[in-house]
């Protein structure tokens, strides 16, 4: 690991606002954080026919990995089976929300390359076991640092939006779909 990489990862561990912003700038300037598919687990990489507008293959993979932990085990199966492409849906969303796209992209890179005590060694988020990923997310969720909690909220929000916006997830929630034309009707909701 180069000295610059070490500095980057050490800075990520503390994650105050200044280092967070510096991280993104340094990473972008040096290319330390890979933007290609290299090193991304195959199951998390975008399909070859997917063209990304905002996310890089790397941030697509980080987002997909995080989303699989956020939506729970049955939801993760839908994502793993590519029945719900949360990364592709997120990319489309971020095109229309440029003020969110920048911070979220930075957050995903920090999530991938930060040094997280619960992992105990320097490994990308996408390459550690699911339990360790849960540990990282939980650490972010309950951290004393605003920035870590914000990172968690941002990634979680987009994961839930893209996942539960997909009709394929209705089997998990019991949502019967709009208009009440199925087994559950609008009248069922209006009963006393």
């Amino acid at each position, binding site marked *: 690991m180069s000295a610059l990489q070490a500095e980057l990862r050490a800075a990520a561990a503390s994650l105050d606002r200044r280092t967070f912003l510096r991280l993104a700038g340094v990473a972008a300037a040096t290319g330390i954080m890979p933007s290609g598919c290299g090193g991304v687990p195959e199951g998390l990489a975008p399909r070859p026919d997917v063209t990304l507008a905002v996310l890089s293959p790397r941030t697509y993979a980080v987002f997909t990995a995080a989303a699989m*932990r*956020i*939506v*729970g*085990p*049955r*939801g993760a199966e839908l994502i793993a089976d590519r029945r719900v492409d949360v990364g592709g*849906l997120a990319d*489309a*969303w971020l095109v*229309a*929300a440029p*003020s*969110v796209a920048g*911070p979220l992209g930075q957050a995903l890179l920090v999530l991938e390359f930060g040094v997280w005590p619960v992992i105990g060694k320097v490994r990308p988020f996408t390459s550690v076991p699911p339990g360790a990923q*849960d540990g990282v*997310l939980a650490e972010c*969720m*309950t951290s004393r640092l*605003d920035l870590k*909690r*914000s990172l*968690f*909220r*941002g990634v*979680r*929000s987009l994961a*839930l*939006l*893209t*996942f*539960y*916006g*997909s*009709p394929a*997830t*209705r089997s*998990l*929630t*019991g*949502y*019967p*779909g*709009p*208009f*009440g034309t199925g087994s*559950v*009707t*609008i009248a*069922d*909701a*209006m*009963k*006393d």
Partner: protein
Amino acid sequence: MSPPERLAADVVVVGSGAGGGPVAAVLAESGRRVIVIEAGPRLEAGDFTGDEGEMTARLWKVASTADTTMNLYAGACVGGSTVINDALCFRPAPEVLAQWRDAYGLGGLSDAVWAPFVGRAWSDVHAEPTGPDHLNRNARLLALGAKRLGWSASATPRSVRDCVNLGLCNYGCPSNAKQSTLVTYVPRAERAGARTLAGTRALRVRIEAGAARGVDAVRGDGTPVAIDAPLVCVAAGVLETPALLLRSGVGGRAGQGLQFHSSVHVTARFAEPVHGYYGPTMAYAVDELSDVHGHRGPGAMIESVTVHPIVAASALPGFGAAHAAAMAELPNLARALIVIHDRTRGTMSAEGAVRYELAPEDMERLRAGMIGAASCYLNAGAEEVLLPINGAAPIRREADLAAVKTRSLRPSDLALLYAVHLFGGAAMAGSPEQGVCDASGAVFGVRGLYVACASSLPTATGVNPQITVIANALRIADGLRRGAA
């Protein structure tokens, strides 16, 4: 680059929602040549599929505060936020109107001045009482809890005609029941000759020698459009108007004084199905904790709100298996919106960056609202209440709320903190030291430039603002119609 397409009008109205729609209708009906430009697309009832994800992506503008703790939402289509709002109608609070007079130099805006415009707004959007046929179980459970607590609460008037309880108010009303400006003021304006340019974004108001000369805009395909007009009325909503004014060279307090209704959701799980995704998205409000319309509470409204999958998931705390387990109970979930009367003030830059750091006293308003909603649901028989606080345990009995009353609470602890009622950034006031425009909506120091959306309201309204925004726009338009410009 090719020269811009050149158009001419008597009036350019930027925005087509609760501010721009009424202005366009009144001025077109008075014989002015009106062009309305709207950054978002034009979708009609037949385009509204009811798909939460698809329609949110097509109709909503999503932004966040600079510190990313709060999401900000607005409509981004012809009709603006009236296409995605919940149709609730509240008259302006007398206390708030008095505050505008006393603290912002708007002494001429007496209750009597407001009254005819509020009445016209009420009538134009067909605000009507919500009867029992339009109260779903989601609303009835909140009502039951409030009744058992002895709290002030009631069904809320809504701007609908022949509502069939689809529960899709936030995703474009497929039955055209909701009286958004898409079906009221915009068609009225067009029948009177106005032209609406959808998918056309205002880049700047052209200001020369202290007077507005028109608007430079760009179509969705990148084609520039220059519209010449001696009168420009900006009504693009709070996520756009202050930045547009700043980009146009309007200085002073433009971009200052933003104020929101910060909001969170409280979710309750019941033993029996609620099916809260059907029925009016909102129809019942507990105003016990409100601080307007004669109430002396901390400043929090509790309103029943829809239980569609995305919004329900976003409001539930945590992640993983526990979160998924709660989502698996979706048919049995009820939800309430906590919407507070903020005191926080924020700013917007010319690039649209919003700084808004929620003040501790507003966090306490959110806390009071969440505890109040939880009490309502427990009294209505909820098996558990899920507060939108990451890491917080479910509430199963009143005693569990003790921990909520004393725990630290920061914006980034919340699963979802957002605002869709946005105000200020180009406020009316008695002087340029206090605001951007005068009581008539005229921007200080720029002839022919007016502001007529929620940006021109000096403070948050304390209640859902649709009627107040429309009434203010009608008042400003009436002044223009009578030749104030």
